[in-house]
């Protein structure tokens, strides 16, 4: 097993300010960036704050930016970098910093609460839900989300425009709207909740200009743009911008009244 000394530049600071600090730290074969950050904590900087949990890319805790790219610390192998490369590690830059590599991601939880939950179908009790695989597989892809919020971090709508945070739910939660709108048993429409209309009017789907950064950074390889955001945009067009559909719906409504 070989070892070498890597040059790390880690952002240290808090909400009052901070700076990129240089470290030289030992790296062993097969390690990931989180291993090296832990070695930094153990040997040089015991007060370095970093959020982590599973070390397996499934909890979504260790989101940060490595050489300017939003990534999970635990899923970024050291072998992808040249040994003489300076590796810069910073907290996610779309959210307020707490300390060092830890950010306050409560924006995402606030947005999560704004999405109306699954509406159970009438007359079907718990344990009685039956769905065909082909009906539910679209929503299942979105259930792979580990809520690392890297997509939220990289989305330029909020990353580069703090003022849009109020109007825009972000890719993770627009994907949640898509998941529910495509769910075969979601009875939102019967309950009077139009998820397509709210996606556009309340959760800011129109802000998305489908530049696919959310898809690029997703550690679960969810096709957020192609399978959630664009289909949701098309569903919104059905509801709001398609005169033929509008005409059809109007005629159908007249017939039923």
């Amino acid at each position, binding site marked *: 097993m070989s070892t070498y000394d890597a040059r790390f530049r880690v*952002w240290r600071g808090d909400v009052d300010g*901070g700076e990129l600090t240089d470290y030289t730290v030992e790296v062993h074969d097969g390690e990931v960036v989180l291993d090296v950050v832990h070695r930094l904590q153990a040997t040089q900087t015991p007060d370095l704050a970093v959020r982590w949990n599973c070390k397996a890319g499934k909890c979504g805790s260790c989101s940060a930016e490595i050489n300017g790219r939003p990534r999970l610390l635990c899923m970024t192998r050291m072998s992808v970098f040249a040994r003489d490369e300076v590796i810069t590690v910073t907290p996610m*830059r779309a959210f307020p910093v707490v300390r060092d590599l830890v950010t306050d991601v409560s924006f995402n939880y606030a947005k999560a609460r704004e999405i109306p939950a699954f509406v159970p179908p009438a007359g079907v009790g718990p344990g009685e839900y039956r769905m065909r695989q082909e009906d539910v597989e679209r929503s299942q892809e979105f259930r792979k989300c580990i809520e690392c919020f890297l997509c939220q971090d990289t989305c330029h709508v909020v990353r580069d425009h703090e003022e849009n945070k109020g109007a825009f739910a972000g890719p993770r939660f627009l994907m949640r709207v898509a998941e529910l709108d495509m769910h075969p048993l979601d009875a939102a429409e019967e309950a009077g909740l139009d998820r397509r209309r709210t996606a556009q009017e309340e959760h800011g789907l129109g*802000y998305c200009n489908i530049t696919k950064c959310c898809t690029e950074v997703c550690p679960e390889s969810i096709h957020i743009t192609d399978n959630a955001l664009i289909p949701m945009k098309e569903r919104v067009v059905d509801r709001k911008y398609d005169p033929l559909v509008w005409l059809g719906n109007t005629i159908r409504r007249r017939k039923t009244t």
Partner: protein
Amino acid sequence: MATGTEPPGSTTGVRSPGRAAIAARHLRTDRWWLSPAATAAGLLAFVVYSTWRAFANADYYAAPYVSPFYSPCLAENCVPMEDGPNWEIFGSWWGLSPALLILVFPLGFRLTCYYYRKAYYRGFWASPPACAVAEPHASYSGETRFPLLLQNLHRYFFYAALPVAGILTYDTVLTFRNADYAWGHAGLGTLIFLVNIALIWAYTLSCHSCRHIVGGRLKHFSKHPVRYRLWTWVGRLNARHMLLAWSSLISVALCDLYVYLLATGTFDDPRFF
């Protein structure tokens, strides 16, 4: 979408109060600029070439080949093409190049295409230039306002692109003739037209709006097995939408260039049989 430019030393975006105090707009060390630069260069090259050819109003027919930029030809000032797409529905009052009448449909289809939107938002408008690279605009309203709200018309351009692709298919069938309009012949141009029409159809059918219309809008696939199957097929094509967008863009330009070279006498069409 975005207006104004961020003033120097601003405290917005990644430099907003509360966020990690890092002065750099981005810390990416890879060649992030290469992709948007290449995209912009490629699109710009096509825009320059197609603008020249669309306004040229000449050298677009060399029997039996008609340039895809001029098909169908909807004005009276078109070159007569035997059995070709001469449909003079605009009559004699149209004095400009007839290409302008038809190109608006494929242009609108590609301009509102979900892939091309990504390409030109990144390549030309830097919104964003690349992932996690701060954009230079002070404000952003996305596709919520006019004119970008019109991107929602994409499905209508898709509907219009279908008959255009059908007519280009007809033009391709006509290439199985020789310069004297006798059937049962083929040349290098026939092969180029065949590749082009295959790519045009693949790009058109791989469209996200097409995917939605054939089945994506359904809530229960199990109740519509045929549409589910179609959705699955379109989905497979859709995964290659970017590749098809570029290859069909290049093939349509090459088709036109081939006709131009034949029409100007620069090149003779090699005949296979």
